[in-house]
C-alpha cells in the first residue's frame, strides 16, 4: 500500500490483495487526514483479489471522508475487482472511475 498526498487529495494505492490484513495499516493511513474537503482516491488497478473485509474497510473510509466533508473515489479497478464491486453494488455508495 502506498499513500501519497497531492493537491489536497489523498491517493491510496493497493497491491495485489486487498483483505483483512490491511485493516490496521489502512486505518492508520487515513486517520490523520482531517483537512476539510479531502478526497480519498483508491487506486485498485493492480488489485486482483478483494474480500468482504476489504469492502468493510472502504465503508469505514467513506464514513471518515464524509465526516470531513470529503469523498471516496475508486479509480480504475481491475476486471476481477470491478465484478466484486458490481455484485456489492458499491457504485450506489461512491464514485467508481473505470
Amino acid at each position, binding site marked *: 500500500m502506498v499513500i501519497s498526498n497531492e493537491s489536497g487529495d489523498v491517493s491510496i494505492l493497493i497491491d495485489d490483495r486487498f483483505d*483483512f490484513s490491511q485493516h490496521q495499516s489502512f486505518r492508520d493511513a487515513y486517520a490523520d487526514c482531517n483537512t476539510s474537503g479531502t478526497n480519498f482516491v483508491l487506486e485498485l488497478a493492480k488489485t486482483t483479489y478483494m*474480500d*468482504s*473485509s476489504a*469492502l*468493510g*474497510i472502504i*465503508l*469505514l473510509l467513506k*464514513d471518515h471522508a464524509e465526516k470531513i466533508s470529503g469523498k471516496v473515489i475508486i479509480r480504475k479497478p481491475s476486471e476481477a475487482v470491478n465484478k*466484486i464491486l*458490481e*455484485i*456489492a*453494488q*458499491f457504485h*450506489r*455508495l461512491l464514485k467508481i472511475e473505470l
Partner: protein
Amino acid sequence: MTDTQDVKLALVVDDSVMQCKVLSVLLKEEGYRVFTANDGARAVAMYVKYKPDLVLMDINMPIMNGLELIEKVRENQTETWVPIIVLSALGDEEDIIRGLETGADDYLSKPINLSILRSKIKSMQKMISLQSINKHTKEELRQANDDLEQEQQLAKNLADNILSQGNIEHPCLEYWLCAAKHFSGDLIGASQTSDGRLHIMVADSSGHGLSAALPTLAVAKIFHTMSEKGFSIPSIVAEMNLATKAMLPEDRFVAAALFSIDFHQKAIECWNGGLPAALVVDNSGEIVHEFKSENLAISILASEKFNSRTTTYNWDDTCELIVYTDGLIEAENLSGEQFGLPALLSVIKSNSLGNRLQVIKQQTMNHLDAEQGEDDISLLAIKCQQELES
C-alpha cells in the same frame, strides 16, 4: 511412594558398593535423595518404582549390563527427560560412542573426577529446569486452547439451536453448506408461509468465524419469524436492515438473497443485495433468467435510503433456481486457482435438472482437493415445477 515435588531423586547403579557410597555422598550434597542398585535388573525395578530424576550408572555389571539398562530406562521413560550419566572403566572411544548412541546423555571414564561429575550434574539440572519451564508454558497454552474450544463449542450449540428453529427440509430443495471455520458466516434458511409459498434465504455475512456468525443469527431469526407470519419479502429485508444496522459496526454487513416461490402462480420473487446472480436454469441447461444483485448488502444503508424492491420471474416449464455465495466460485486450490464461474456454468449446462447440485459439490471438493476453503461455501438448488405434492 509419594514424594514431595521439590525433592529430587537419583538412582545410582554400580556393582561396587564402595562406588555407590561415594556417589551417594556427592549426590546428597547436591540435594538428591539417593537409591542404589548393584545390578542392572534391580536397577530397572527401582527405576520403574521410584521414577528418579537422574541416573548414574556403570556399564560392566552382573545380571543385566549397562547398555541393556539404558535401553530399559529409555523404554520406561515418561514425557519428562531423565538424564543418564555413564561412569565406566571402559574408556575407549568405541565404548563411549556405543554408550551415548544407546541413549546415555554423558559418559565419564573411571577413575571419576568428582569435581567434573559435580559440574556435569549441575548442567543437567539446568537443562531439566529449562525443559520444565517449556513444558509448563506448553501446558498453559494447551489449557487456554481447551477453554477457547469449549466456549466455541458452547456458542456453536447455541447458534445451531437458534438455526434449527427453521425447518430447512422441502421436497424441491437441495443445499450444500461448507463452513471454513467452526462458525459459518453463511446461512441458508427455508420457511413455508401460511399461504403456501416457500421462502428461501441465502446470506453471507462479512468476515469469518464467530463475529460473522452472530449477525446471520439475527437475520435468521427475523427471516423465520416473519415468513411464518406471512410477511412479504420487502417487509422482511427492510426489518433485517433496520435491526442489524442498529447492532453492527460500520464495516460489517450481510450480503443476502431472499426468494419467495409461489408454485401455483409459477413465480419466483427475489431481493438480491450483494450475492452473485442467482440463476434460473431450464431442463436443457440454458440460463433463462438471472437475479442479479441490485442492492447494497443488508446493514449498510440507513432505513430511509434502503431499497427493498423485488423482481419477479414467471416460469412456464419446469426449471431450477440455483443460488450460491462467492465462496463457491472463489474456492482456491493449492496453486491458488479459483473454481471459477466458467466451471460452474459448464457443470450446470452439462447436467440434468436434479443432479446439478451434487455434481457441482463434487467438482468443487475435487478442486479444493482436501484444502479447507478460505471462505464459507453455500449452494442451493430448488426445483420449480407446478405439480407439487406436499
